């Protein structure tokens, strides 16, 4: 380095050429400017059209679902006078208090009495008028007020599915005729179907409920979240912050990306083989559904988590290391809080996908007919999307609006879940 540093400096600028002013007024120039503005307008219109179109589709979907499904939350009832005093049920008041009451009333032939009363009131087809579960309403009323057994009373009882369909819209001809006959007498009415909100599946569309599937979804999502979130976040942190960059971590990265793109039914087969086959966990159980969906959700959380962690500015890490924070303090005090909103966004996407998933759950047995809500993680259960799939497959016309109603319930679940995640994300969001 004996050479002087000055020798490395660039020499002065070359002699400037004669300056020719640009003519901005020529036709070609003006045309170019016009085309530039036109291109911009065109682009803005296309964007606007795209947004309008997607908003339109969404509005259409929501409107149809609401229009068709809202009826599923109501039921048609018919007023039936029942003379329990005259029927002389062989039930003593002592039998009515306690557990034996249901059995005693059924044994005394309450169902027959209710059917007979309907036939007496509305002609020989009267007993086809009532839902199979109508007498249960009378039973509950008697249990609440035993004095009914000694007198004549009128009850609003749920009608059978064909009548319900005919009353709400277009049904079979016989049912239409029946509704036409009854409507002038003012005995038909509509009320909120509370049974739909607190019972499970049934073969009779007037007696089905969404609660079983809703609770199944809730338990399944709980298992998925509790597994996929911590494991996904820890994997992302390890891969970004600790793992060396070598061939093995490259292979792991590619595998995770591929895993996120694997069709969901493959995860169902995996769940079937591993959780049911190898570990012998119960079929149709929320725990198995949750495990299977967690496998599917984890890669999404890992990928979103890694991107969020990568986006944390290195200067923050330097700052923390510079005051003597240990690597784990850097991660938990600075990197993770700053990455959390991004991680939560990934989790929302992953969980929303898991909530709507049907195919893998069919394979682990969740398509079974389950008539009682699950009481725990190992009880047989079904989930909302599978329930929708099962009902949409039913022949009975009564299931059509129940399917739409179940879709509304699923959307409400989804909105609630996302709302919670967005609330959490905004709470953790750091204002720079």
């Amino acid at each position, binding site marked *: *380095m004996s050479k002087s540093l000055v020798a490395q400096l660039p020499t002065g600028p070359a002699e400037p050429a004669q300056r020719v002013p640009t003519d901005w007024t020529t036709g070609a120039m003006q045309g170019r400017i016009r085309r530039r503005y036109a291109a911009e307008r065109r682009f803005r219109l296309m964007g606007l059209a795209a947004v309008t179109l997607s908003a339109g589709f969404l509005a259409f979907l929501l409107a149809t679902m609401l229009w068709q499904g809202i009826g599923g939350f109501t039921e048609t009832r018919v007023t039936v006078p029942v003379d329990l005093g005259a029927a002389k049920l062989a039930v003593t008041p002592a039998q009515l208090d306690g557990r034996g009451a249901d059995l005693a009333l059924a044994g005394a032939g309450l169902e027959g009495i209710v059917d007979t009363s309907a036939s007496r009131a509305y002609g020989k087809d009267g007993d086809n008028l009532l839902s199979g579960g109508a007498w249960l309403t009378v039973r509950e009323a008697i249990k609440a007020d035993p004095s009914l057994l000694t007198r004549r009373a009128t009850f609003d009882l749920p009608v059978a599915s064909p009548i319900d369909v005919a009353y709400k819209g277009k049904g079979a001809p016989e049912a239409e005729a029946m509704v036409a006959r009854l409507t002038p007498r003012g005995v038909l009415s509509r009320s909120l179907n509370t049974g739909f909100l607190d019972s499970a599946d049934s073969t009779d569309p007037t007696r089905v409920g969404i609660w079983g599937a809703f609770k199944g979804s809730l338990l399944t999502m709980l298992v998925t979240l509790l597994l996929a979130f911590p494991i996904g976040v820890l994997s992302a942190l390890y891969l970004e912050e600790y793992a060396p960059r070598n061939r093995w971590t490259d292979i792991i990265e590619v595998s995770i990306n591929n895993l996120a793109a694997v069709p969901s039914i493959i995860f169902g087969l995996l769940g079937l083989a591993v959780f049911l086959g190898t570990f012998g966990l119960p079929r149709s159980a929320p725990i198995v559904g949750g495990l299977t969906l967690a496998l599917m959700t984890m890669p999404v959380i890992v990928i979103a988590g890694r991107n969020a962690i990568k986006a944390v500015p290195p200067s*923050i890490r*330097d*700052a923390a*290391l*510079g*005051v003597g924070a*240990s690597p784990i303090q850097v991660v938990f005090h*600075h990197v993770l809080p700053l990455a959390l909103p991004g991680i939560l966004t990934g989790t929302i996407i992953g969980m929303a996908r898991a909530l709507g998933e049907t195919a893998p759950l069919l394979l682990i047995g969740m398509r079974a007919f389950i008539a009682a809500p699950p009481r725990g993680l190992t009880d047989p259960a079904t989930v909302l999307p599978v329930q929708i799939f099962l009902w949409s497959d039913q022949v009975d016309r009564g299931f059509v609006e129940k399917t739409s109603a179940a879709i509304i319930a699923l959307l409400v679940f989804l909105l609630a879940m996302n709302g919670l995640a967005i609330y959490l994300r905004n709470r953790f969001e750091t204002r*720079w």
Partner: protein
Amino acid sequence: MSNTPPKMTASHVTVHYGTKRAIDDVSIDIDQDEVVAFIGPSGCGKSTFLRTLNRMNDTVASARVEGDIRLDGHDIYAPDMDVVQLRARVGMVFQKPNPFPKSIYENVAYGPRIHGLAQSKSDMDGIVERSLTRAGLWAEVKDRLSDSGTALSGGQQQRLCIARAIAVDPEVILMDEPCSALDPIATAKIEELIHELRGRYAIAIVTHNMQQAARVSQRTAFFHLGTLVEFGRTSDIFTNPRQERTKDYITGRYG
């Protein structure tokens, strides 16, 4: 100045990034009560050298440091040296102000908290006030300690970073071009601050601004292409450099 042993000594330090040699056989010592400036054109290795002094290069996987660096006579690359403790003793201020996206109070309190330096809330309040006062920021922020540190102006942010560094009571402060992102007024405030901090802390500062080096430092090291060209009293370097390259650089004919 030379009666007491130097605070930090670096002898024959060589750093590689992968196969590329970033600095080659650099030996510098920093005394207890002085400010040492590192000057040189971009890419000459002065920042790399600065970062070896508190082992910030450990975070770069490909970096390899050879040679001997001692703090109070202890080898800081020895296996028994706790790097977390080292960085508490050798604080750092970075080129770009990088306050945490937390409140002003939290920014200063973070270091003392993780090292357990405050026994109570009032202890911590005292440390925060003292550090901000020493960094010349207390008067400007005392009424808004709970505001975000990132809401301050660039110069205030950099003084906040200095307050954060001195809150853990370090013995040495490394400053990596602390004024390069600041306007002249903010720069003047930081320089004034360096004058006031001198004596209490040993300070090493990397700068591209030669007037700044001349103003704040007692000794200056000139780096070029990874080697230490000249190291001596600042007044000598700027008035009577021994090397041709130093002369070219400080007279502004190069760089």
